[in-house]
C-alpha cells in the first residue's frame, strides 16, 4: 500500500513540476525546439533543474542499502549502444517534434480535459501496446 501511495505522491509532484515549468504546454516545447524561429530557451532550465536535482538526490539515496518501501533499487544495467536504442530514440524525437507532447506532459495535459491530449494519449498507448505485442515483451 505504501508503495502505491508514494507513487501517487511522486506522480502528483511530477505533474505539478510539468505545470509550473510550462512543459505541459506543447507551444512552449515546440518554441524551445525552434531555434531558427521564435526560440524560447525555458525548457533548458527545466532539464537543468530536473537533472541537477536528480544527480544530487540519487547520490544521497543510492548510498542507502535499500529503498524505504521496496526490497531493492531497480536501476538499469544495460550499457550497449545498439540500433534499437538509437532507432527508437529517433522515432520518439520525430513524434515529439510533430506536436510537442512527450509521455509525461501528455498525461498531465489529459488531466486539464484538453481533447487533443486525449487523442494523443490514446494513440500513444496504442503505439506502446502495439510494439510490446509485436515483440512479445
Amino acid at each position, binding site marked *: 500500500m505504501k508503495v502505491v501511495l508514494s507513487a501517487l505522491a511522486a506522480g*502528483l509532484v511530477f*505533474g505539478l513540476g510539468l505545470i509550473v515549468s510550462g512543459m505541459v504546454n506543447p507551444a512552449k516545447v515546440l518554441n524551445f525546439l525552434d531555434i531558427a524561429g521564435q526560440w524560447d530557451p525555458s525548457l533548458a532550465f527545466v532539464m537543468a*533543474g530536473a537533472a541537477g536535482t536528480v544527480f544530487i538526490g*540519487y547520490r544521497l539515496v543510492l548510498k542507502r542499502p535499500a529503498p524505504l*518501501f521496496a526490497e531493492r533499487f531497480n536501476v538499469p544495467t544495460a550499457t550497449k549502444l545498439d540500433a*534499437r536504442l538509437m532507432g527508437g530514440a529517433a*522515432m520518439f524525437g520525430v513524434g515529439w517534434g510533430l506536436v510537442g507532447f512527450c509521455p509525461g506532459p501528455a*498525461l498531465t495535459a489529459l488531466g486539464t480535459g484538453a481533447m487533443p491530449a486525449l487523442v494523443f494519449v490514446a494513440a500513444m498507448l496504442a*503505439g506502446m501496446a502495439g510494439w510490446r505485442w509485436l515483440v512479445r515483451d
Partner: protein
Amino acid sequence: MDTPTAFTPLSALAGGVLIGLSAVMLMAFNGRIAGIAGIVGGLLGPAPFTGLDRYWRLAFAAGLIMAPLIWLAVTGAMPEVSVTDSWPLLAVAGLIVGAGTQIGSGCTSGHGVCGLARLSLRSAAATGVFMAAALLTVFVTRHLV
C-alpha cells in the same frame, strides 16, 4: 501552431526542481526510475506487470493526470495547453511517440532526466538522438514545409 511563448527561466527552473524531486522520491521510496514511458509501458502488452507492481504504476500515472486539478484548486485556473487540433497529426505523433519510447527504452524523463543524472552512456546517446530528431522535425515542419 506558432504561438509565441515568453521566456520564463525562474518558473522553468522551479518546475524542473519539482520534477527532479519527484524522481528522487520514487527512487527513495520505491527504488524506481521515474521514466514515464517505462512506467506506463509496463501496464501494456501481452505480459503486463501484475499485483503491486501494476498498482504503483497506475498510481503514478493517476498522480500525473490529477495534478491539473490540484493546480486549479490552488490557483483558480487550468494550466495552458496550446496544441494543434489536427486529430490525424495528434494520432500519428502519439503512435510514433508510443512505439518509439518502447523501442528506445525511454523518453524525456527516463533518458533525459534520470539517465543523464546517472551519467548513463545509453541515456546520453538516446537523449542526443531524440533531441536532434525533434529539432530537425520542428525545423522541417515550421521552416521548410
